């Protein structure tokens, strides 16, 4: 089976190499597959017999000369969210829970798995990334396992938990005085000046394909059917675009019957260039300077912003943004109802779902999947206020009874009654 890199804009084709820019028109290069050939090669039964990780769909991922990676990334739970569904009045609500992805507790483990497999193929001994945190964790973890030298650049003001969860691996972690977008520029320059595989620059065509496995898994875990609606957090706009591609591909290769999937995007109001693009219908994205606690979505100049907006609009979906306050409230709602402690992007996704329901944009009855992309332990400080007034007692039953005040009883009851 032949895979190539193709420019989506001018059609320029080239063999696999570490590059992301079309030399003819300077638009992005993307991996292209031979779908007619795959239609006769790929079956649900074959896939079902394979190990439960993201590489069970390897025909729809960039071919890896060195063989499928051993680190078992992906196959995260798809949860029927009955309790959150009752709160939101959505009886067919599901959560794709990448907060428990392996090894570093976010969907970024998927993209790194593909990028590093290709980095090894291309002979890179040094890899790197610009990151808002989750990617830093994922790259540091998998590069350590593979014995690659990793150079990770993060904004100076990144959450401490994400910095610790990167520094614990064997990596060269560098804080940069600047925004994520400033670091992206630096990383792009690095690829021109040094022999380094930056996963989200010169390895980006392969890296971004890893996001599709979220979509493949959703389809398989729903019993080989497409959902009606998905709500997806947006930073660079790659995940939502690739989900659209994944839903298209499973139809193309004959794994499921065609059915329209409405795709909805979620951002924080303090950094919402893609949501703004969807809502205004503008032709070009206007970059912003991020101002939000939602660091994992703080990309002011998203490379796939326009494509993300097109994916949303062409699917019949919509995009919205929510305040930091609503984000934190939604993190707590998700934890209290479904037992999932999500990082800020998960809060944004749940809060945007509420907003879209209030606007009548989402169909309450439809099979709907919310993508929870990262773990709350990475942004725990945001909900630390919940520990401000914890009782401290002597180890006596009388003290225990005293601290069980009526207010706490009421809160406990209200949650269990949902």
């Amino acid at each position, binding site marked *: 089976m032949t895979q190539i890199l193709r420019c989506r804009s001018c059609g320029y084709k080239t063999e696999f190499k570490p590059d992301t820019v079309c030399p003819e028109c300077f638009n*992005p290069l993307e991996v292209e597959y031979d779908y007619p050939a795959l239609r006769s090669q790929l079956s649900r039964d074959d896939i079902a017999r394979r190990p439960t990780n993201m590489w069970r769909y390897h025909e729809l991922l960039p071919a890896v000369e060195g063989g499928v990676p051993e680190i078992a990334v992906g196959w995260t739970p798809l949860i029927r969210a009955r309790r959150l569904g009752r709160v939101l009045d959505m009886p067919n609500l599901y959560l794709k829970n990448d907060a428990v992805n392996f090894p570093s507790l976010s969907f970024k483990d998927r993209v790194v798995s593909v990028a590093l497999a290709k980095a090894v193929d291309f002979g890179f001994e040094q890899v790197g990334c610009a990151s808002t945190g989750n990617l830093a964790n994922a790259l540091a973890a998998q590069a350590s396992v593979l014995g690659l030298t990793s150079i990770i650049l993060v904004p100076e003001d990144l959450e401490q938990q994400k910095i610790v969860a990167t520094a614990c691996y064997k990596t060269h972690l560098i804080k940069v005085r600047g925004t994520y977008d400033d670091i992206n520029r630096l990383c792009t320059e690095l690829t021109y000046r040094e022999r380094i595989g930056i996963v989200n620059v010169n390895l980006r065509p392969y890296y971004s394909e890893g996001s599709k496995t979220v979509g493949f898994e959703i389809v398989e875990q729903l019993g080989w059917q497409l959902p009606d609606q998905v709500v997806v957090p947006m930073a660079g706009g790659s995940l939502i675009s690739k989900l659209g591609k994944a839903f298209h591909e499973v139809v193309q290769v004959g794994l499921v019957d065609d059915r329209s999937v409405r795709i909805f995007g979620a951002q924080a109001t303090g950094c919402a260039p893609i949501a703004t693009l969807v809502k205004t219908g503008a032709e070009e994205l206007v970059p912003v300077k991020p101002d939000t606690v939602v660091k994992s979505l703080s990309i002011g100049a998203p490379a796939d912003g326009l494509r993300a907006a097109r994916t949303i609009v062409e699917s019949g979906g919509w995009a919205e943004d929510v305040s930091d306050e609503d984000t934190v409230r939604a993190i707590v709602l998700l934890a209290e109802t479904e037992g999932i402690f999500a990082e800020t992007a998960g809060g944004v996704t749940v809060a945007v779902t509420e907003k879209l329901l209030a606007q009548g944009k989402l169909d309450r009855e439809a099979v709907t999947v919310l993508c929870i992309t990262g773990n709350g332990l990475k942004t725990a400080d945001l909900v630390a206020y919940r520990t401000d007034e914890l009782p401290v007692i002597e180890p006596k039953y009388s003290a225990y009874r005293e601290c069980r005040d009526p207010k706490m009883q009421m809160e406990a009851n209200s949650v269990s009654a949902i």
Partner: protein
Amino acid sequence: MSVQFEFLGPLRQVVHGDDKVVVAAGTIGEALVELDGRYPGLTGRLLESEDTLHRHINIYINEEDVRFKEQLATTVKPGDLVTVISAIAGG
């Protein structure tokens, strides 16, 4: 006023591989038009339209993205370093 331009990576081909290019101009837009005289076809490849930069190309004056300033109308002054670089990164 002379300003130094630096085209990085694949974008260097629009200035025929030249390392650094010096141009006299008052704004980024004027500089690109001037460079187009030297390297025919340059503006056609770097711009979406007469007044809009290609969506996957960034231009920085020193460290500042011109999209956060006046875009192609952003003024330049002697000694500025203008960097032209691909914007396909991140996420």
